[in-house]
């Protein structure tokens, strides 16, 4: 191995070992905690740390985004010094990743030839794989990320348009193009909007008695658009809209909802409610994110 190859391998390994998976794990835990505290405090004026937890989540999301950007910059540097972005080498050390971040079983071999660098960083792959599973496109290759979609508000607008069109392929494309941190951000921007839209649909703020009606109204269409969605994910979201205690989570970790499920479902549900009400996404949501 030449000196430049050695340098490249070291940079590549360090880049691949950046703690993206740990940040996703933190986001998942903080999200669960926020959800529980929101339920506890729903009738209380005491914030109980929920705003601070939201701020913590935003910082973690920003950290994840910064890591992804750093990975791309390091990849560009490697290309600039004449090294392929990824020669398929396994980086040294611990490569523990969450199950959902694993490569597809049917993906290309882990040792691509030098002229065919792997262009899909692992941070994006898990999101893309899950989106494909949810939308019933498990066999299709992931698309290229759209760098214009830099915030969850913009992605939500695109998802809502995809939902309105009723075109599952289009919905898949819009979600697939998003980077993971942008996609996950939909779960953060949609809760107040979902509650407001459901209030307008029902004619009153959603409560426990409205759960069945919302489920029967929305579940079939959600199933059409997200055939791979576990029922528990929609149930979780609907109970949250109705300000009910969250349903009990399965004991087995492998049966628990995927981190992307809540984000994707909340985006689709927002689109469905907007469509039912004949509205567009409020301007505020389009600029938030």
């Amino acid at each position, binding site marked *: 191995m030449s000196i430049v190859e050695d*340098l490249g391998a*070291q*940079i590549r390994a*360090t*880049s691949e*070992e*950046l*703690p993206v998976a*740990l*940040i996703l*794990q*933190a*986001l*998942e*835990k*903080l999200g*669960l*905690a*926020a959800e*529980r*505290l929101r*339920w*506890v405090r729903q009738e209380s004026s*005491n*914030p*109980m*740390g*929920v705003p*601070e*937890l939201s*701020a*913590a*989540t935003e*910082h*973690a999301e*920003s*950290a*994840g985004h*910064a*890591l992804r*950007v*750093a990975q791309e*910059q*390091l990849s*560009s*540097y490697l290309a*600039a*010094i004449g090294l392929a972005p990824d020669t398929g080498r396994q980086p040294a050390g611990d490569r523990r990743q969450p199950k959902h971040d694993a490569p597809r079983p049917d993906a290309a071999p882990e040792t691509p030839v030098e002229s065919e660098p792997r262009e899909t960083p692992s941070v994006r792959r898990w999101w893309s794989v899950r989106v494909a599973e949810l939308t019933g496109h498990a066999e299709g290759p992931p698309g290229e990320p759209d760098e214009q979609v830099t915030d969850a508000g913009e992605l939500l607008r695109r998802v809502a348009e995809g939902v309105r069109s009723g075109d599952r392929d289009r919905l898949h494309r819009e979600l697939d193009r998003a980077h993971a941190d942008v996609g996950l951000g939909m779960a953060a921007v949609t809760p107040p909007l979902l509650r407001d839209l459901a209030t307008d649909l029902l004619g009153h703020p959603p409560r426990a008695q409205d759960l069945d009606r919302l489920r029967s109204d929305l579940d079939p269409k959600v199933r059409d658009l997200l055939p791979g969605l576990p029922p528990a994910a929609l149930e979780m979201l609907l109970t949250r809209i109705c300000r009910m205690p969250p349903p009990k989570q399965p004991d087995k970790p492998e049966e628990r909802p995927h981190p992307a499920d809540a984000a994707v479902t909340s985006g689709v549900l927002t689109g469905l409610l907007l469509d039912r009400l004949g509205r567009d996404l409020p301007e505020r949501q389009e600029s938030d994110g």
Partner: protein
Amino acid sequence: MASVAELKAAIDIALQQIGDGQAAVQAASEKLAEAQQTLAGALEGSGHETVEAAQASLTQASQELEECLAATLTAVEQAELYVSSL
């Protein structure tokens, strides 16, 4: 009708989840610091703009993680304060 005990139990679970999140953030910070050190050594002497940009991104990530941790600490304080007032 929920009891105070149930309320406390629910907040306890949330606090535990925040603790898990904090542990992951701390682990991420440590791993990131190691990566920054490794890259600083490997890329010493480089004036390439993408290297500088990457190092700036890593510094930003590190700061965001610090602020994330600080926010969770405040959240825990708030939640514990509420529990103590029940």
